[in-house]
């Protein structure tokens, strides 16, 4: 559709855009990225025909753009720029109608029904029809942006060029606009070329990205190829971290602020624990990075308060989540900052231990009961039933963990737990074999993300060794306490 070959040019003799070549296919949503001053807008202005270029070639459908008249070009290509001056108070409809200029040939060509239909349709699609008789000077920035989008659309272009289209828009309109553009590329075969400031938005919506650096092409590839930590660091000279999008396979970048935490390094230990008849809680002085399988606050996140609540064996589990939320609120815990777990075990049987390593430490808390122990290798013989969790393992790490270390911590802690089942000869009552845990165990790994950097947590790494030891000792002690209580009864 659009082909740019060895394009160079700029405002003065020193070219801003240097030897840029790329192609855009019909129906593609093509994003242009790059830091300030990398030549994004200059490149877009050259494509749109505003700025003459020194050398190279731009062609649409195989024909050089220099061979088209302004009107011919306007019928093929519309532009939505960042700023539009509005010196006079034209109405919304008058403004949108101007987009039909290129289609109105001849001095006295009057407004046709076709023109009216297209204008009404575009106003409908951009959601501005309701205020078509309002003056554009009365509109908000976002509404005005949609008016100019409608104006570009009534040009009926095959290519739409946009310069940071989401600049003045709030979150919902950003999404709405980009959803709309994406749909048009799919349904109508519209080709969209857009400058983006926001890497994450660009990776969400673009089929391909062009990363510019100092006026030259750094990378031209799919978002997954372009939005890589090393590339972004190299071009933008800033610290970022990459995270996958939770529901679609595109990369997302987060900035890493370079201010240092002024607070002293925190060490989580028994002094932060609180005991009551109904629950054990731990309130950390700072939010901790967590990965957990609790009832509340499960998954990956940041949490400050941790609650292990005792419920009776007869507890009705049908709507345990909202009941637990209610419980937390009632007891003065802020649910958004809290990880909540349940257990039918007596809380007095809790076992906890602070273990110091080399420049870091871990704090393990375990509550365990094995009345519904299960052998995972034969779990198909059990029927599904939600029973309050019986082995809840909490591991607090006073150090900085990588994502990898979080996952390895879970593995290591689980392996240590399984070993306790074996050494304590806990049997699965249904199958009569050695159990591997209970049917509703929960785990929490929480790290302060301060102090020593701990990259791995496999069983023989420094951190892994501490976790294995801590979980094994605490779980053994908790299982023994719980058994003694049952015997005493």
């Amino acid at each position, binding site marked *: 559709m659009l082909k740019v070959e060895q394009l160079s040019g700029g*405002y003065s003799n020193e070219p801003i855009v240097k030897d840029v070549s790329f192609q855009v296919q019909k129906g593609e949503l093509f994003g242009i990225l790059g830091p300030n001053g990398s030549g994004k807008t200059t490149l877009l202005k050259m494509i*749109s*025909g*505003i700025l003459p270029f020194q050398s190279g070639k731009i062609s649409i459908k195989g024909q050089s753009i220099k061979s088209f*008249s*302004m*009107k*011919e*070009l*306007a*019928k093929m290509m*519309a*532009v939505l*720029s960042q700023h*539009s*001056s*509005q*010196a*006079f*108070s*034209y*109405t919304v409809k*008058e*403004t949108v109608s*101007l*987009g039909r*200029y*290129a289609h*109105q040939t001849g*001095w006295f060509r009057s407004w046709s029904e076709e023109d009216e239909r297209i204008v009404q349709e575009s106003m409908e699609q951009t959601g501005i029809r309701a205020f078509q008789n309002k003056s554009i*000077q009365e509109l*908000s*920035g976002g509404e005005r942006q949609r008016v100019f989008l409608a*104006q*570009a659309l009534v*040009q009926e272009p095959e290519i739409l060029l946009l310069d940071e289209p989401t600049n003045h828009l709030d979150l919902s309109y950003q999404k709405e606009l980009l959803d709309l553009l994406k749909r048009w590329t799919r349904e109508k075969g519209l080709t969209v070329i857009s400058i983006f400031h926001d890497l994450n938005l660009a990776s969400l919506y673009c089929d391909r990205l062009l990363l510019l650096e100092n006026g030259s092409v750094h990378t031209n590839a799919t978002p997954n190829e372009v939005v890589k930590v090393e590339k972004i660091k190299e071009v933008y000279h800033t610290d970022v971290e990459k995270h996958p999008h939770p529901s679609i396979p595109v990369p997302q970048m987060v900035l890493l602020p370079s201010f240092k935490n002024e607070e002293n390094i925190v060490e989580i230990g028994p002094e932060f624990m609180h005991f009551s008849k109904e629950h054990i809680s731990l309130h950390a002085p700072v939010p901790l990075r967590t990965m957990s399988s609790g009832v509340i606050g499960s998954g990956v996140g940041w949490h400050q308060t941790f609650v292990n609540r005792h419920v009776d064996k007869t507890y009705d589990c049908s709507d345990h989540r909202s009941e637990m939320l209610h419980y937390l609120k009632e007891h003065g815990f802020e649910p958004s900052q809290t990880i909540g777990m349940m257990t039918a075990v007596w809380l007095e049987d809790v076992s906890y231990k602070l273990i110091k390593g080399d420049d870091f430490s871990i704090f393990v808390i375990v509550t365990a009961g094995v009345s519904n122990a299960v052998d995972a290798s034969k779990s198909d013989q059990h029927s599904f039933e939600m029973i309050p969790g019986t082995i809840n393992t909490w591991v607090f790490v006073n150090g900085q963990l990588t994502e990898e270390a979080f996952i390895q911590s879970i593995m290591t802690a689980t392996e240590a737990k399984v070993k306790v089942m074996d050494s304590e000869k806990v049997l699965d009552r249904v199958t009569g074999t050695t159990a591997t845990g209970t049917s509703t165990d929960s785990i929490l790994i929480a790290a302060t993300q301060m102090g020593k950097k701990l990259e791995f947590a496999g069983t023989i790494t420094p951190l892994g060794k501490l976790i294995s030891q801590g979980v094994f000792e605490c779980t053994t002690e908790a299982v023994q306490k719980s058994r003694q209580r049952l015997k005493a009864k």
Partner: protein
Amino acid sequence: MKSKAFAYVFATVFLIVAMLLGISIGSVHVPIVNIIQIIGAEIFRFISIDHIDPMQTNIVMSIRLPRVLLAALVGAALAIAGAAFQGLLRNPLADPYTLGVSSGASVGAVMTLFFQFSIPFVGAFTLPLLSILSAFLTIFLVLGFARKIDKGMKVETIILTGIIFSSFLGAFISLVIALTGEELRQIIGWLLGSVSMRGWTYIKIILPFFLIGSIIIMANSKELNAMSFGEERAQHLGVNVQRRKMVILIAGSILTGAAVAVSGTIGFVGLVIPHLTRILWGPDHRHLLPLSILTGSGFLILADLVSRTIISPIELPIGVITALIGAPAFGLILMKRRSVERSGSDA
């Protein structure tokens, strides 16, 4: 559309009323019924006007009607030129006067009077032609100078440049006047602006230029609409901006030059009338331009009427009246604009 039709009816009625008043009022009062009959008789020869005093017929046909028509043409030319400059430069403060075009045209006219130029074969048209030419040269100098200072050609820069040129050319004219002996009175009288005692010749001079300039500008109304949103935007919409801008500037200079040539420098008409018209009926140039013609001509007829009756029998220069009305209006526009900008930046 209904309101637009009403706008045309209103503006036309305003112009007709202004014309009738302009012809009727003066040292000798001519009843409006008589005016209609006299003009009717002029067009349709079979209407008898024997019952009307021939002196009245004479006053209407050779003094007041040409004077009113000339005022109308000058007002119309300045108003449409102002509307075009404002649309082109996206600024309601632009007009032939603030841009220095009027002063440029004056220089051309003053030089013609001073050196008694006469281009062979064009005779009476020498003055308007040289006025137009120097108006044209001035607008190019102003724009070229503004481009040198500020590549983005911000409107503020253009207006400031226009004012610099206006002052400089005004000083130049004063210098020429100081050097003049007997021609002095003629030049000063002409400079202050007047449509009196010009007769039908001057109408014949301005009419062709007025028609050419207005038709060119009105043929560019859609382009002016597009350019109101900025030159880049207009180009994206398919307007050949460089060419259209040139055409509109040429047409605006033709109109201004011709108006200055027949009536001297009359300020503020080109500023206030398009602005007022825009406030009343919206900025769409397809309607703004013809409506400005109607209101501009009506306004200048009334201004001329005031100038010759307010301290009768002394006649004030018409430029004094337009400036007395225009300058405060200019100030009001500026104030309103500032407050709009302020509230705009808050939003």
